[in-house]
């Protein structure tokens, strides 16, 4: 059994996946993650035998910085409370998995691989984008072709073409959720295990844009004598 949390984008979702059966609580009310996440968790855990829990899945980014921290701080607390390991998965990898699994059978020729390019807008005219290879014959885990990254709007088409090449291609902006994350992680939990869960950080993909103070304050004043 896995408890899964996704607060990386607009939807706040929590899921309890037991084998193939998923119980999900979800809301698409804007900026509701901070308020709703803990009540969703409490609701799902009520009456559940938590000793059967194999891990807490967190959709770890990229995404809204605030959303990622709400989810991760909660996931870390649940790991501590329930003595469960932390399983972290990329937002883009879950999107790739969900998009591929959601295509009807026969959409792609059997025996070949498909490159899925999940992407969604970052701030400032940029995109969070990834490229994952999925096999039509083997079910399971997306294989990352390159690390998730941030690409400017004018360059995103070129970036995608470069990584897809001549292979079959599936482009997606569709938001995934906690249940998709849990289904993905369930296939190979060890691949997502964070040994050092306590100091684990979200996949922000961007550094903080702050510059150290330079020079004297008087240089920046109208009467600054220099």
């Amino acid at each position, binding site marked *: 059994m896995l408890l899964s949390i996704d607060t990386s984008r607009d939807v706040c979702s929590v899921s309890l996946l037991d084998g193939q059966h998923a119980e999900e609580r979800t809301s698409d009310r804007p900026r509701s993650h901070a308020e709703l*996440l803990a009540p969703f968790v409490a609701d799902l855990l009520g009456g559940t035998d938590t000793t059967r829990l194999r891990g807490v899945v967190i959709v770890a980014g990229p995404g809204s910085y605030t959303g990622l921290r709400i989810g991760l701080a909660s996931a870390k*607390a*649940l790991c501590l*409370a329930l003595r469960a390991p932390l399983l972290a998965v990329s937002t883009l990898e879950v999107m790739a998995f969900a998009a591929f699994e959601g295509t009807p059978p026969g959409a792609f020729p059997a025996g070949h691989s498909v490159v899925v390019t999940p992407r969604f807008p970052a701030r400032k005219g940029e995109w969070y984008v990834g490229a994952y290879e999925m096999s039509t014959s083997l079910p399971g885990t997306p294989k990352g072709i390159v690390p998730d990254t941030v690409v400017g709007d004018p360059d995103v088409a070129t970036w995608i073409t470069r990584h897809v090449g001549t292979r079959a291609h599936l482009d997606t902006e569709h938001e995934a959720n906690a249940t998709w994350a849990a289904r993905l992680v369930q296939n190979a939990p060890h691949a997502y295990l964070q040994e050092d869960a*306590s100091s684990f950080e*979200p996949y922000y993909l961007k550094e*903080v844009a702050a510059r150290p103070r330079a020079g004297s304050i008087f240089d920046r*004043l109208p009467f600054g*004598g220099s």
Partner: protein
Amino acid sequence: MFSPNCGNDENSCVLGIETSCDDTAAAVLVDGVLRSSIISSQSEHIPFGGVVPELASRAHDRHLVPVVEAALHEAGIQAGDLTGIAVTRGPGLIGSLMVGVSFAKSLAAGLGVPLVGVHHLDGHIDSLLLGGTPPERPTLVLVVSGGHTQLMTVNASGERQLLGKTRDDAAGEAFDKVAAILGLDYPGGPVIDRLAMTGNPSFHAFPRTRLAGYDWSFSGIKTSMLYHLGSMDAPARAAYLEKHLQDLCASFQEAVVDMLITPVVRAMKQTGFRSVGLVGGVSANSRLRARLGSEVEARGGHLHVPELSYSMDNAAMIALSGCLRLTRGEQDPLSITAQPSLPMDLRP
């Protein structure tokens, strides 16, 4: 150590969490006795001359679990032993608060124990109960830090009322800003305090902004320092600072201390209260402690100042404030959120 006489005869084990600004802190109270208090102060902000909110949020996320684990370990307990969780709900930086509140809510949900959101200033007021002899009530409490400057009354039954507050900068913020003007390191309070010890407090008469009632304004004194030095060209200023840095620090500090003390003395006269508490990070300022102490004693009162580790931002005070609320049978729903501008009259 604190041992409250508040009727909690059952076994209680409360974790307090504080992440309102740039200190990540956790503390454990077992049966009302403080067993651990861990504070991790973020050094990430020093090169920037002030707290960078996004950096602070990221650092809280990184440090919180190790700090909580250290607090549990030092208290000799495990997470499963906890009977309640207390967390600072506000006021403070929204991103920073949100890390602590999200963590606390899910910990409470995972353990199935009650949660209480604590007003940061209630925590500071209750820090007067940590260690030593608790002050007599009613009490006048001056909270003075990098983010807050408030004067409050606490009556016999523990109810708080806001008397006055700063209308712009907090007093600690004035220290930081003036330190930046003088080219000194961040945070500015301890540096200015140290330099002022060998300076002349009457060297330069900085203006004392005095408002009616109990409010303060500290933005003028920073501007005054800026204009005082800005009237010189760079070489003259460098030579002047070389010779008079200590004097300027002492004169600035004296003006801030004068301003801080005036409403407290006025409130002692108006209310007749003789018990005064000084809390918040700026309570570490040696001149403020000495001057306020003698002013209070001259009026037959007594000044209470908690030791610095309970006076600066810490989680022991939050655990205690939360413990007192839990003992009164109060708790908050898991839907509570961080409130960056939580007003004093709104109990969380």
